[in-house]
């Protein structure tokens, strides 16, 4: 496949120089941390304090550190996007003159942690709310203000919905009598039929 990391990309050359100078064990821990947080777009991988400590630990000034972090993240994001094979990734990295030991660290980490990141991203969506919880209760209604001696079964379905970026779950309670539930089930069966045609 065509390489997605090219030396002609402006900052790659400079970043490679910095990365090559980093101790390989420290680099390994850095990459592991970055890949863990990769699926959380918009969140900082390292806090400000952590970045200060990293500057000292890796003997890099602020700008250099930023370049290294951004480049490492870029490499991993591209790997996810194209779902690249670890060997191919390693080759591409060596082609831009990353030291073999560093290239190996990245492709090893990718091999172990990569598939999980791809799965997580496959399931993250744009929909405002997602169904997370299904609960229910079956009741036998005996009477109400307008009717005595009922004995009618009714089911209450609890749907727990959560927004993509919030911790709070919104509960929606819906009532069904026997016929209504049957109608609902028939519709679900049609949906299932559609899902079956996809596999």
């Amino acid at each position, binding site marked *: 496949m065509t390489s997605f990391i090219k030396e002609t990309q402006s900052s790659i050359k400079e970043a490679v120089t910095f990365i090559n100078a980093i101790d390989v064990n420290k680099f390994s821990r850095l990459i592991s941390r970055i890949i863990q947080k990769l*699926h959380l*777009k918009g969140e900082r991988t390292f806090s400000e304090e952590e970045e200060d400590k990293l500057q000292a630990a890796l003997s890099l000034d602020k700008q250099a550190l930023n370049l290294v972090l951004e480049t490492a993240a870029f490499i991993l*994001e591209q790997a*996810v*996007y*194209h*779902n690249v094979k670890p060997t191919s990734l390693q080759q591409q990295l060596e082609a831009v003159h990353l030291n073999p030991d560093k290239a190996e660290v990245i492709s090893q980490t990718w091999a172990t942690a990569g598939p999980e990141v*791809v799965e997580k*991203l*496959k*399931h*993250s*969506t744009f*929909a*405002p*709310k*997602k*169904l*997370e919880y*299904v609960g*229910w209760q*079956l009741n*036998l209604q005996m009477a*109400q*203000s*307008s*009717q*005595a*001696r*009922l*004995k009618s*079964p009714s*089911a*209450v*379905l609890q*749907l727990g*919905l959560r927004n993509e970026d919030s911790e709070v779950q919104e509960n*929606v*309670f*819906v*009532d*069904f009598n*026997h016929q*209504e*539930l*049957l109608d*609902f*089930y028939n*519709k*679900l*069966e049609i*949906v*299932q039929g*559609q*899902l079956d045609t*996809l596999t």
Partner: protein
Amino acid sequence: MSSSHTKDASFLGGRIPAEIESMSKNLKDVDQELFRKILKAVVSALEGKDSREAMKSIAESSIIPQERLSHIVAGMYKVLSEAIRIPTSSLKQEAFREDLRELRIPEDFITDFSSVVFGNRRAALDAATSQNDPHLPTVEDFKWRVDVAISTSSLARALQPSVLMQMKLSDGSFHRFEVPVSKFQELRYNVALILKEMNDLEKRNILKIQD
């Protein structure tokens, strides 16, 4: 051999409501035409419609003083609202008529009452009155969509199916949400489970709880 006929308690229960007692006393001056007019207005009120205009015109065109009229209307309303609470499977027409005879209501009026309680408008009446009862929202409209995400900004090849559901509930609320395929299976399984339990319940309880 004597068979003592023990009559079940009236459909009104042990104690006759005051409105109905006073109605019985006041019905003697009411002719059938007036009775039917009032009945029509009372049924309309039970259905949840505004019958104030009808009531007003009845009051104005009748020689019966308003106070007595109000007793009659209240009593008739009570008779009907109590009668329609009981399912037709439990309250039989003959028992109903007998109960009203015991209240010394004229036979013609009993027939008119009966035609409301046991006639073909009864189902509509039941539907109208149960609307005011407390209940959780039901599904008014349910739409769905099956999507496959081909690619996203994070993944060139995602190929992930998902279900999008849209529910409009009877309380006016609107919910649109995505259902991951695994959750969809869970939902479908649970709904099937509830249906099975409902079936079991309906088979069982018909035998147990006597009316």
